[in-house]
């Protein structure tokens, strides 16, 4: 009788332990751990250049925006200014 009881207790404990393996993620909505959960951001080259700004690029064209930024970046090199 006591052996049966011991087997039953062990089996019950195994079931309890196994229940832990079936745990579901307790996150709300479509949350994915490690992935950005916020609002999507817009891209700077998708904006039109300012009417009064010096930087000009074609709206939606990433390469032309990068060229404009590179020109601006190179302006930080005063050795270029001295040469002009």
């Amino acid at each position, binding site marked *: 009788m006591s052996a049966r009881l011991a087997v039953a207790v062990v089996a019950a404990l195994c079931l309890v332990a196994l229940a832990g393996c079936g745990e579901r993620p307790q996150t709300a909505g479509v*949350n994915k*751990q*490690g*992935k*950005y*959960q*916020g*609002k*999507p*951001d*817009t*891209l*700077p080259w*998708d*904006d039109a*250049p*300012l009417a009064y*700004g*010096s*930087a*000009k*690029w074609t709206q939606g064209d*990433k390469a032309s*925006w*990068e060229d*404009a*930024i*590179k020109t*601006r*970046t*190179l302006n*930080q*090199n*005063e*050795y270029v200014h001295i040469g002009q």
Partner: protein
Amino acid sequence: MARMKFLCDAERCIACNGCTTACKNENEVPWGVNRRRVVTVNDGVPGAEKSISVACMHCSDAPCMAVCPVDCFYHTENGVVLHDKDLCIGCGYCFYACPFGAPQFPQAGAFGLRGKMDKCTFCAGGPEPDRSEAEFEKYGRNRLAEGKLPLCAEMCSTKALLAGDGDVIADIYRQRVTVRGKGSEVWGWSTAYGPPPAKPAAGSKS
């Protein structure tokens, strides 16, 4: 693809805090928050004193992003690390993870209550419509969307602080180091006072 980075030249920085002031003004940063600050080491030691302007370094593998429990950080296509203030819970984990002390928390209440995290955005705004009032109020000005670079670097008087594509600013810095050489001429003693006097010959009376 451009990967936006800051580079501060410690030989040029004169600790004027112009970058700090420009950032506060351009982004209307709240009281008690400094997105950028100047750190000086060996203060007052001639030749050994160095200053450097520090803000978010927009890490390629950002620790703040790794520890955020609500995953409010993201990388833009240009490599700028930004975050969504609507998600931030102000827990402060990012502050402990960041090696530069970039994340800042406004004191929102009388009992040490922390507000939502605020940090340098590389003047790239945040996840609100570009150049909108909502974006400006939450994150500051979006100068990248205006075809400009961060104001801290653009107005730096000695051009110690450079901002832009990492490869481009590395080229500028490399050229600078090659031209100026090394040793005392970098510090400027010889430039200011002329070459050191010749030592008297050995054995002569002084």
